[in-house]
């Protein structure tokens, strides 16, 4: 167990900066998820921590020692690869014990750990098979076992679930969360899947274009994104961003035919806005409520009636689409709202959940 510190970390390929000087402090025992779209540098960052990529500037410290110039095999880390990287000529058992054999632990300890990991990951029946005889999900579990059997300072995961089908991915996600709860070691986990990021991380680090856009607890990132990138990347379906303009004369934010009184928004100060400033109003689909079922409507912002254009049923939920001006907007309503396309729709939103962004630079306005 150990903490990991990245200080002003830079990675360049042919003069182009892929990682642009990031700082990150992962606490001992913390589960940190790096999330972002492909090409954002999250995997490169992880591989730099592992020692599989050179560092062009900055430092990486694991357990208080700088590891910049240490080869991967000297860093005492364990890693689960996206494509599992199992040794095809070794049995499951030998794959799992390969790292321990090097660290010269006693036979008894080895057997003990193997048994522990095999039970935890339900690998008991597979120990004598070769990777070629395993299904994708089984291989994934072996790859996890190979990492978890080690007494490593830090465990690294490079999109470990991305090759599994949806059901298995969900199952393994829960498994990983459970394993971390039991082991309480330092986990750094890379994914492009925002659901994995939200559900697994003690802390989520959202990356884009080689920089950290925001880090915080999953709920913090979900409720208080610092810019439109984070706002739309985290959460599914994406946050609605409705183009708007601030009108100082009557203190209204104007969206096409809708007006949102500034006095409703406790989190936004008029001092931070200019007359005629171009804005986005951000509302998550989940925060729209059907006026028929909302309880405390007093303080809510009630939208004038809209016409439903499309309904996508999801079982318990349904996604209801309508327009504000030219902007297509989605609301997620539950079973109770029995609606059809073409119906009139009465919606309300808790104003605390309405976010305002500057349309020019995408930054949140408070």
């Amino acid at each position: 167990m150990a903490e990991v510190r990245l200080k002003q970390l830079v990675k360049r390929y042919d003069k182009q900066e892929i990682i642009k000087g990031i700082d990150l402090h992962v606490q001992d025992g913390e589960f940190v998820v790096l999330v972002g779209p492909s090409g954002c540098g999250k995997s490169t960052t992880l591989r730099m921590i592992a020692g599989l990529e050179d560092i062009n500037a900055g430092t990486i410290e694991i357990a208080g020692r700088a590891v910049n110039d240490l080869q991967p095999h000297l860093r005492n880390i364990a890693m689960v690869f996206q494509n599992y990287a199992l040794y095809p000529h070794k049995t499951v058992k030998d794959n799992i014990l390969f790292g321990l054999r090097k660290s010269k632990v006693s036979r008894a300890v080895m057997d003990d750990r193997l048994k522990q990991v095999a039970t935890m990951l339900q690998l008991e029946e597979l120990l004598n098979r070769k990777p070629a005889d395993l299904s994708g999900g089984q291989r994934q579990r072996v790859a996890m076992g190979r990492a978890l059997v080690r007494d490593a300072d830090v465990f690294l995961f490079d999109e470990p679930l991305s090759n599994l089908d949806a059901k298995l991915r969900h199952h393994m996600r829960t498994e990983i969360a459970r394993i971390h709860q039991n082991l309480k070691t330092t986990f750094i986990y890379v994914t492009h899947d925002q659901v994995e990021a939200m559900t697994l991380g003690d802390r989520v680090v959202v990356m884009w274009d080689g920089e950290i856009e925001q880090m915080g607890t999953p709920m913090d990132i979900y409720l208080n994104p610092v810019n439109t990138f984070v706002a739309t990347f985290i959460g599914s379906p994406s946050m609605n961003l409705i183009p708007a303009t601030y009108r100082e004369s009557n203190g209204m934010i104007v969206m096409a035919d809708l007006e949102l009184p500034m006095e409703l928004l406790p989190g936004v100060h008029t001092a931070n806005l200019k007359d005629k400033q171009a804005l986005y109003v951000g509302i998550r689909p989940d925060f729209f409520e059907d006026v028929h079922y909302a309880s405390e409507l007093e303080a809510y912002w009630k939208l004038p009636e809209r016409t439903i254009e499309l309904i996508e049923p999801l079982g318990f939920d349904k996604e209801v689409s309508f327009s504000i001006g030219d902007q297509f907007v989605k609301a997620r309503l539950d079973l109770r709202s029995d609606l059809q396309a073409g119906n009139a729709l009465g919606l309300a939103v808790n104003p605390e959940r309405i976010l305002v962004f500057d349309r020019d630079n995408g930054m949140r306005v408070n």
Partner: protein
Amino acid sequence: MSDRIVAQESRLGYRLLAPAFLVIVLLILYPIMFNLYLSFFDVQLDGNKTWVGVSNYLKLLSDQTFYHSLGTTLIYLAGTVVGTTVLGLAVALLLNEEFPLRNLVRGLVLLPYFAPVISVVFGWQFIFDPVNGIYNHVMVEELGLMSERQNVIGEPDSAIWVVIVFDVWKHFPIAFLLILAKLQSIPKDQYEAAAIDGYSAWGRFIHVTLPELRFVLGTVILLRLIWNLNRFEDVYLLAPNVETLPIYIYYRAFTGVIDQGFAAAVAVVQLVFLAGLIWLYVRKVLKW
């Protein structure tokens, strides 16, 4: 599939095989059978043959020159096969690393394999020439490692080493090519996983590279054994005094006191060794 379709398919299969089968029968099977037949006769130059039973084989078993030739062949096989495999592996590992002009170097390494035997043989003979060769010049005059010039190729005992080195030099590129092709297909993340599991470059070579190369190394070794057991022209052209089995057979069949029945018997012995190697290749290597 119905039985009729299966029967039709297999008839088509036989028809497609027939031409190749015919050629093999005419050019390979017939000579082999005829050779086996000859090995039981005392063959005269005018074509007359007398049946002698197994006496050619008995003569062979008591012939010192045959055992000497067998020994030469074993040294030649061991030296060339180990040499080409090790050198091919080393060069393949080296040229699998990234460096400028890598593709050019990879191309140049193949040259010995593509060069015509006869032209490079003359070059090698010149290198070891006792009077004008650079080998003697360097060893005697420059480095002083030898006190006097030697006719390296002229002496069978030293000539075999020249023949082995020549064969390694000429044929390692095929080992290099096969091994390099396999090296390039080993997934990079296996090396990364082994590095993270705590293994240094040497450990990764032992635990990732070698097991992955097992099949191709087996192929290289067995194919080289099969080819070199039959190799005639390289040895004969460079140093005709190195009597490996094919050359021994040639001398007995076509030079000096000609004894084609005896030569045929030696050829049968060689065939038995060859069949053993081919059996190994089909049973083991092709199964991996």
